[in-house]
């Protein structure tokens, strides 16, 4: 036989066996190794005196034939893992299909847990974490001022401050001023319905600051912002599509907006969502620096930091720049010097990254929901790990045989790995579908308002999250089973499975730890939702100071071009109210410019009580001012405590004021209000004097969570204008009805349309809705935590039941023996139940410690409840213990009923 043929056959044989996986390099290495071996053997034989040819022949024979060699090599050849993996995969798929309930449970658990977590992750990531979608977003900041001296925070901006920074602050590339609000919009030709549009008056550089060009036409420029420049507006993509059908001919169209004819010069792209996602119209402010005051904090400002300038550097620069405003703009308001503002108010500039400012209100809520999702995911993981252990338990025999007939440990471990990777892959696909659905639900019907929600979408980061989490979870869950299978070795499985052994610690240990962890996490979720529910209960019990049931509200604005004089406005309101009061069922109706609990904010001004010192020398603490008529108090059932209410609209005197009990107490030192009647005060040092004619009950104006604020109601709705003269001719009509609130709203709308068809009505809401909306956030968090608590508790209890029942099934023989030897059934039941209770006790101790730490993060949602609330803790522990009692009692009773004869015969 020629050697060449021999090699060729060996290599060919190896190739055939290992197929496509064989590598040329390994072939060569193997060949060389074999040649070396045979040569060495031949050399040895030669040393023993054989001829060269004979030595070679014997060495080759001793090595063995090609087929024998390669048969053995097939199993160990390097490329085998892949082939093996494929074979194992087929095996795993078969065995998973043979256990449909296990497979479905694991997949559903993983898909819901990971899907929910992925949805929350997507929202948190897109809203809180991702940079804003504008050029160099890290340079964008929100500027404001705090006045700790006047307890006035986030005061915003005044035109004087804006011009000062714009000229002198070197740390800024640009600064843009804006005021938000809404405006009536009608067509000059009278076509179409009048509309109330969300609007922003902005400085000319507003759009260039964000580096966003117009989608159509042009953006606003500094030229548009000059006083006296032609009046133009830029509209949003949404308005463009809704009102102009997305037609390019919208450019150049004219609208009557904010009391004047304005030309549309541009349409912004949908991604331009400043100052607000629902801003529909941008209009230039056209401020005149020569006529600007340093006072009037009714503007806000965005800015772009100069390159490589930090927030801290910018804050230092602005702090150094601010005092120079007093030189440029000596007066805050007519007759009030800027010196007073700086001496008394001590304003401090604040600089915040724009993204943080945008999401400031929602970040805590989203992180909390994220934590709840993570908690549920953890418990679901424990459940899946438990299921896998149970399954591995049932397959000890099979795995034992596999090990016994030669499957290596690596092989068994890889079997579990393949199973978990397969499960993870399918679970990922299901979780992705679940996440898409959940994100859609959150984006389109979230019960709370979430900024940037329009930017949220499922994308590659979501998919990456799902895949990584699924793999991580599935692998982690498989580890306990794989370790157990490997550790118990070959014959252990065979021995154990074929004989009813007593429950060994090793077999129940892992599952017990998992169940105790589940109990601990369930307690955390229970505790959190108990706290929230107590807090929401307290919120419900809060008396806001008015009666919200059966009250309809809607807004209407009387523009200057149609109602030039204040008396015209009063006549319009008077007529409107007369007709509203005539609607069947309406018992009272009134108007105001500020609704309680309305998120749009309140006006703050100081209150100088007459005869309490030099008004020009000190600024008293700020308090709220609103305008209302007498009908407003009656409609909301705000009680009159002393004095009288305003006279009817057309006869009321502008210098009369009604104050809240809180103002009477704090500013006039009399909570009964009796001595306050007739007292006089000013809201500007040189301003007009107002006389208190009545004291009414205090109202929670800003939030149910905040104690009643000091409030002054002035009579003249039409006269209480802001400094820029934008006109507070915008009022809410408030009507109490014994009938249907919605029908009343429709009737009021019809009356407004009948009185003046050019006036839109807007922000239609029942007072009850406004109150509800103000507590939407804690209630939403409560619902999320409640669901998390229910799911974790249910999974925990099921897990506990499983472990206890498993113990009973393992110890049936022993329990039978005990009963046969005279143990009472109740003693046996107790013994079993004690196992369950021990587990839950361990969970409770661990969980309570965890809950004490975790609930601290809920502080911002809690109202009149401390994060560590013994009652909530006690209630949670009791509920958990009750559930675990039930879960251990059922298998314990079964244990007590074991028939000794049957148990022994089962052997």
């Amino acid at each position, binding site marked *: 036989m020629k050697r060449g043929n021999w090699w060729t056959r060996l290599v060919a044989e190896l190739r055939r066996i290992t197929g496509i996986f064989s590598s040329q390099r390994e072939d060569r290495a193997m060949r060389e190794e074999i040649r*070396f071996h045979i040569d060495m053997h031949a050399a040895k034989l030669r040393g023993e005196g054989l001829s060269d040819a004979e030595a070679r022949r014997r060495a080759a024979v001793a090595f063995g034939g090609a087929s024998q060699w390669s048969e053995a090599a097939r199993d160990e050849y390097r490329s085998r893992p892949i082939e093996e993996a494929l074979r194992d995969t087929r095996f795993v798929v078969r065995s998973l299909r043979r256990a449909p309930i296990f497979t479905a449970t694991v997949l559903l658990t993983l898909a819901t847990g990971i899907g929910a977590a992925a949805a929350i992750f997507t929202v948190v990531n897109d809203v809180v974490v991702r940079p804003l979608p504008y050029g160099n977003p890290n340079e964008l900041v929100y500027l404001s001022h705090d006045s700790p001296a006047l307890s006035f925070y986030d005061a915003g901006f005044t035109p004087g401050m804006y011009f000062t920074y714009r000229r002198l602050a070197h740390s800024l590339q640009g600064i843009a001023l804006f005021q938000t609000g809404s405006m009536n919009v009608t067509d000059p030709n009278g076509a179409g319905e009048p509309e109330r549009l969300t609007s922003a008056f902005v400085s000319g550089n507003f759009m260039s600051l964000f580096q966003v060009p117009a989608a159509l036409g042009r953006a606003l420029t500094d030229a548009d912002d000059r006083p006296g420049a032609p009046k133009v507006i830029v509209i949003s993509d949404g308005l463009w599509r809704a009102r102009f059908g997305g037609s390019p001919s919208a450019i150049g169209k004219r609208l009557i907006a904010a009391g004047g004819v304005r030309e549309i010069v541009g349409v912004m792209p949908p991604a331009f969502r400043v100052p607000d996602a629902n801003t529909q119209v941008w209009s230039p402010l056209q401020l005149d620096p020569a006529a600007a005051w340093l006072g009037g904090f009714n503007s806000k400002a965005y800015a772009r930091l100069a390159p490589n300038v930090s927030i801290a550097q910018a804050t230092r620069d602005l702090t150094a720049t601010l005092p120079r405003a007093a030189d440029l703009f000596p007066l805050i308001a007519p007759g009030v010097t800027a010196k007073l503002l700086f001496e008394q108010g001590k304003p401090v500039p604040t600089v915040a990254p724009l993204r943080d400012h945008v999401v400031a209100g929602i970040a805590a809520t989203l992180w909390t929901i994220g934590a709840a999702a993570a908690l549920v995911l953890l418990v679901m993981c424990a459940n899946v790990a438990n299921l896998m252990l149970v399954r591995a338990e049932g397959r000890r025999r099979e795995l034992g045989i596999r090990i016994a007939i030669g499957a290596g440990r690596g092989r068994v471990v890889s079997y579990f790995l393949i199973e978990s990777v397969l499960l993870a892959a399918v679970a990922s696909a299901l979780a992705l579908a679940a996440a898409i659905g959940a994100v859609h639900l959150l984006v389109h019907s979230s019960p709370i308002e979430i900024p940037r929600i329009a930017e949220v979408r499922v994308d590659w980061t979501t998919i990456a999250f799902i895949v990584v989490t699924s793999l991580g979870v599935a692998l982690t869950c498989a580890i306990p089973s794989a370790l157990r299978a490997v550790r118990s070795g070959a014959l252990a499985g065979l021995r154990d499975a074929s004989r009813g052994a007593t429950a060994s610690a090793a077999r129940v240990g892992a599952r017990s730890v998992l169940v105790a962890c589940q109990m601990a996490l369930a307690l955390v979720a229970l505790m959190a939702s108990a706290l929230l529910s107590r807090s929401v209960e307290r919120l419900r019990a809060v008396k806001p100071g008015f009666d919200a049931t059966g009250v309809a509200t809607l807004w209407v604005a009387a523009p200057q071009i149609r109602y030039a004089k204040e008396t015209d406005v009063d006549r319009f309101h008077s007529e409107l109210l007369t007709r509203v009061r005539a609607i069947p069922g309406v018992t009272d109706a009134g108007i105001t410019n500020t609704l309680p609990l309305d998120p749009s904010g309140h006006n703050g001004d100081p209150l100088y009580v007459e005869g309490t010192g030099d008004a020009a020398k000190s600024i008293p603490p700020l308090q709220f001012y609103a305008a209302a008529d007498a009908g407003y108090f009656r409609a909301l059932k705000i009680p009159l405590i002393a004095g009288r209410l305003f006279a009817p609209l057309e006869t009321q005197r502008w210098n009369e004021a009604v104050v809240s009990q809180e103002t009477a107490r704090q500013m006039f030192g009399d909570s009964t209000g009796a001595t306050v009647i007739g007292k006089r005060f000013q809201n500007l040092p040189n301003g007009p004097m107002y006389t208190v004619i009545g004291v009414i009950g205090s109202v929670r104006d800003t939030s149910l969570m905040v104690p009643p604020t000091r409030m002054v109601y002035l009579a003249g709705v039409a006269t209480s204008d802001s400094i820029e003269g934008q006109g507070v001719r915008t009022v809410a009509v408030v009507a109490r009805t014994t009938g249907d609130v919605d029908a009343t709203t429709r009737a009021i709308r019809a009356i407004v349309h009948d009185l003046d068809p050019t006036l839109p009505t807007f922000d239609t809401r029942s007072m009850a809705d406004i109150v509800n909306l103000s507590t939407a956030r804690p209630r939403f968090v409560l619902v999320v935590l409640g669901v998390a608590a229910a799911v974790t508790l249910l999974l925990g209890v099921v897990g506990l039941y499983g472990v206890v029942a498993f113990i009973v099934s393992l110890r049936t023989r022993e329990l039978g023996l005990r009963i046969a030897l005279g143990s009472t059934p109740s003693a046996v039941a107790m013994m079993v139940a004690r196992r369950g209770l021990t587990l839950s006790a361990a969970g409770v101790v661990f969980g309570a410690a965890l809950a004490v730490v975790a609930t601290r993060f809920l502080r911002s949602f809690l109202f009149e409840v401390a994060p560590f609330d013994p009652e909530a803790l006690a209630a949670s522990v009791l509920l958990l213990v009750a559930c675990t009692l039930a879960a251990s009692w059922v298998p314990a009773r079964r244990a007590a009923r074991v028939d000794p004869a049957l148990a022994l015969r089962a052997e």
Partner: protein
Amino acid sequence: MPQSDPSGDMIQGMLDMLILKALSLEPMHGWGVTERIHQWSKESLAVNQGSLYPALYRLKRQGWIASEWRTTENNRRARYYSLTAAGRRQLAAEQRGWERLSRGIELVLGMEQP
């Protein structure tokens, strides 16, 4: 690695143990392993080459031995195998297991018939 149970896969396990032992002194090529086992067993054990190389590959894949190409004293290229730390531990474990097993077998076989 958990302790092994040599009773489960006796033959294969024995060969593995012998190979690990042979490599515990110094790195060796396949031929050297055969020769060493042959010598140490006072020529009573002869390793079949047909199972030697598959065993070497298997041990390598399990991470108990590593291999590298080196030159022999006679200036030939050969694949040398050496024991890894994991292999050393495995050898110790297998040796303990083997001692237990062989003691047990001795006791059983040494039993006098009553």
